[in-house]
């Protein structure tokens, strides 16, 4: 093992793209992947978390990560939940605690307007203690399609 790659998993369709890019980089570098899900303000902002208790939000975040990881992928078993109303800041704090070498997030393209879809990534890119890779949704192809369909079903 040499290094830690944090992969952000939110409830938009871009998480699949982020995981795919993180996996590719982790393989090349022999790094570990730490999935980070979001509870609190971010979940609410994403459109699914309104009115959730903190416990429910955490459980949702965990479920989201488990869904992304699948039952068999041992490279995605390390998981943490970022809490609070400032997701970029919470993620930056976790990155610092874990001495992460890289953060991978999805670009959320296509689900929001141009400003919203890049706002989180941009905020992170300004505050993170390590480089941030922003994966375009196209990188995930089928995975993204599946997640978007899933999201639409939930709504």
């Amino acid at each position, binding site marked *: 093992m040499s290094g830690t790659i944090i992969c952000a998993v939110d409830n938009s369709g871009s998480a699949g793209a982020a995981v795919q890019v993180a996996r590719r980089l982790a393989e090349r570098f022999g790094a570990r992947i730490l999935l980070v899900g979001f509870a609190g303000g971010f979940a609410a902002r994403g459109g699914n978390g309104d009115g959730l208790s903190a416990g429910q939000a955490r459980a949702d975040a965990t479920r989201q990560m488990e869904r992304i990881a699948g039952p068999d992928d041992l490279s995605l078993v390390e998981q943490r939940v970022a809490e609070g109303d400032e997701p970029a800041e919470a993620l930056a704090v976790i990155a610092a605690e874990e001495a992460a070498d890289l953060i991978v997030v999805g670009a959320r393209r296509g689900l929001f307007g141009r400003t919203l879809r890049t706002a989180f990534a941009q905020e992170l890119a300004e505050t993170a*203690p390590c*480089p941030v890779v922003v994966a375009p949704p196209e990188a995930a192809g089928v995975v993204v399609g599946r997640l978007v369909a899933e999201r639409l079903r939930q709504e």
Partner: protein
Amino acid sequence: MEAATHGTAVFEARSSRAMGPKTSVRTRKPLVCGVDDSAYGRAAARVAARLAERLRRALLVVHVTRVPAAFGDSAAAAGERGLRRGESLLATVIAEEGLGPADHRVELGAAADRLAGVAEEEDAELIVVGSRGRGALRAALLGSVSSQLIASAPCPVLVVPPGAAATCLSGGRTGARSTGNGGSRRQKIGLRKQGATHHRPFLEGA
């Protein structure tokens, strides 16, 4: 746009060269790094060089400049001037940052637009850029290069935040930024080999 119409021809020319003898690195998707003379641009270049080395990818260092056609200058003359300045800037940055065997190229136009264009032409694996840090208001009004790229790039974008840049900065200057409008001519200025690279833990391996 001129870039769009010339894109195919340029790509074909490159592809045919990529079939030549020196192909082990070139046939794989390259990393594209946008640099300027600022500390942030240089930090991005260093991170990109280390990644390219570890991933065994070719590195294409790109400087995008906008050239004002002012004071009676023709657009062509302004473009030439921009290219010359860009070339000398790239030569300096590559030498001073020890970027190793990196192709480099000067592009005229808007930074995010041209970087995304180059990434597409070269079928890049990743675009690496720096970030100037908290400029929320400015970014909201004008859009920053990194946020525009995130929204439009054909491949993943690696942004080196100022906080991360500080840890791998050994100095660096705050550089001038050019303004105004330019065409879309590109130029490639050779291959350079250089020795040492800087290292951070992630890229040092086990």
